């Protein structure tokens, strides 16, 4: 009898545990963060999961964390997705946070972040400063530092501006769009440009915070804008989830041209010498005439979808995919530079634009299955690994 009851209870326990097991096993491998990073003075500052890490990316000790790092968020449920913004003096860094299973973020200013600092990084200020301040939604886009101001969008669809010195809001009222903003904003001399998932691109006056224009105008609908726009020579480029690249005049918000790609678009194109370079989620990479949007100079097929803005450096286009491949194409012809694409670990995605530091190409894969964040230094000419953070013995 006891055995019978025990068996029944085992069945019950099994049924209770099963959903959790299946929930953990189901679906694609979980990626637990979408990290961001910025590089200054041979140091890469990573914001990943609930840690901020400073890694040496130059010299013999490349691939090692600096002393005093990582810095952990105040709470395990608070994470970092944003690309940090670094002050030119290299002593201060700004990051946004996101709350897991929630929608509230903070902006943190850290000081003493520089290499050789005698004290550990510390929080200079945290926005919201007071309980009456506007509480941002999750902040996933980069902090954009421009002329003493920090600009960003949030998960509640708000475009915001803070004084970088003390965190005070710069505008009387933030600009509210009608859906979340997960991408980074871009700025020029006049405006801040934000792509909202309410299917619109907004231009906001930098001084007043007032809306200057909204693209498209009333009566026209486009697909959601999930990735970050880019801006070159008075034109804002933004791609839609449905796969159309729009070139919009920064001054007026008028459409200059549009280009239909073979798959959905995430982050905007890079532009060098009048050519736009971008990829789509169907695994196509394009080189497009920026003036007309009509003449495809070349296109290439890659393994996996492209979410990042490609990096163009010394005539080479570097572009990563969500299937852990990184490609190097000649910017003028589209021919491969490396003998084969660099392959990160299985399960990793390359969603963040690489950064060149001297002759090293620094790559930040997305976390795979809860593994610790990695930062990889590649020889930019060959695609060979030079170093990896964390170093192999700790990896």
């Amino acid at each position, binding site marked *: 009898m006891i055995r019978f009851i025990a068996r*029944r209870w085992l069945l019950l326990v099994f049924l209770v545990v099963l*959903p959790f097991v*299946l929930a953990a*096993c*189901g679906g694609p491998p979980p990626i637990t963060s979408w990290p961001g990073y910025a590089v200054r003075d041979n140091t890469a500052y990573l914001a990943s999961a609930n840690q901020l890490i400073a890694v040496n990316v130059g010299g013999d000790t490349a691939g090692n964390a600096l002393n005093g790092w990582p810095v952990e968020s105040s709470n395990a449920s608070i994470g970092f*997705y944003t690309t940090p913004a670094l002050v030119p003096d290299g002593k201060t860094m700004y990051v946004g946070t996101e709350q897991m299973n929630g929608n509230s973020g903070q902006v943190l200013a850290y000081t003493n972040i520089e290499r050789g600092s005698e004290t550990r990084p510390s929080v200079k200020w945290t926005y919201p400063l007071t309980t009456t301040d506007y*509480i941002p939604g999750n902040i996933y886009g980069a902090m954009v530092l421009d002329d003493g101001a920090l600009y960003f969008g949030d998960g509640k669809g708000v475009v915001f501006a803070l004084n970088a010195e003390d965190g005070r809001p710069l505008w009387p009222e933030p600009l509210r769009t009608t859906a979340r903003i997960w991408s980074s904003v871009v700025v020029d001399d006049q405006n801040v440009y934000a792509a909202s*998932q309410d299917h619109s691109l907004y231009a906001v006056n930098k001084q007043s915070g007032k809306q200057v224009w909204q693209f498209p105008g009333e009566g026209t609908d486009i697909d959601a804008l999930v990735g970050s726009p880019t801006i070159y020579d008075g034109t804002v480029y933004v791609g839609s989830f449905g796969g159309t690249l729009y070139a919009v005049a920064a001054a007026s918000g008028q459409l200059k041209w549009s280009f239909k790609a073979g798959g959905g678009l995430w982050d905007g194109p890079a532009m060098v010498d009048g050519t736009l370079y971008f990829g789509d989620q169907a695994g196509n990479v394009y080189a497009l005439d920026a003036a007309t949007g009509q003449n495809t100079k070349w296109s290439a097929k890659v393994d996996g979808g492209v979410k990042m803005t490609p990096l163009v450096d010394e005539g080479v286009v570097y572009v990563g995919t969500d299937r852990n491949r990184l490609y190097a194409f000649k910017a003028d012809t589209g021919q491969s530079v490396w003998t084969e694409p660099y392959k990160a670990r299985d399960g990793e995605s390359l969603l963040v634009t690489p950064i060149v530091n001297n002759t090293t190409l620094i790559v930040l894969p997305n976390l795979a299955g809860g593994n610790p964040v990695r930062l990889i230094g590649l020889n930019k000419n060959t695609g060979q690994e030079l170093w990896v953070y964390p170093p192999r013995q700790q990896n």
Partner: protein
Amino acid sequence: MDILISPLVNMLLVFYGVLGNSFVLSIIVATILIRLVTLPLTLPQQRNSRKMAELAPQLEELKKKHGNDRNKYAQAQMELYKENKINMFGGCLPLILQLVVMIAFYQALTGSLATTPLQLQQLSHRVLPALIPLIPIDPIFLIYDLGLPGILPAIEQNISPLVAQLLIFILPVLVVATTYLSQKLMATPSADPSQASMTRQMNIVMPLMFGLFALQFASGLSIYFIVSNVVGAAQSWLMNRRWQQKPILVPATGLAPVSKASKPITAPTTDKAVVSSKTSKPLKSPAGDNGKKKD
């Protein structure tokens, strides 16, 4: 699991588009559809349970016959089940499959709402091109974000903590209540005291467990639980009514069949063990003396 999630994601998006961009309606319609599609799994399970319940008097008889010889009793029990075409595992496998569907639905639900950039990234691989204009989905339903647990932070911040807690508990309480109702109607009485006790415990533990899920997971899952439970309860109620009028079992053995007249099992609206002199009475009747063939 992916093979289930992608079609479910697209189904949710289609319903969202057709039903005036209301995701809660999309969840409700999709849940009803899932219940209909899984009917071939749930119905045999219910029939199986009902058959076992109807055989309870015979099992009681066998127990008396074989006394403490558990092996012989188990053998006779197996034969009885075999003769009445009862699958011993019939109750377990459909339950596991339903759990798999539930988990896939949960993942489809949170995946469709894509509450983080990573989920949106994954959604981009699942969604059909024609449905892309519907993205992002509006996740708001009354005071809930269907992709997140709890109530909307904007509302939570503007009300007292006590009221916020009360509002947070509305959906979990509904989940507990409907799960209890559904379990209660689905449970078939058992002659075996240990099994009856187990059923009673399940009827308490399962609703509480699902209530806990409702607290911790996206509120859209609570909507799924509530609708699924209501549909399941309605299904059980209808089937119970039908089986009350027309018991399932056909007398196939030398043991006493179950007859209309004897009504060994009444409507299974109670989870208490049905081992009474009243229910076991007809077993004393010789086989076939009142054994009209049952459908």
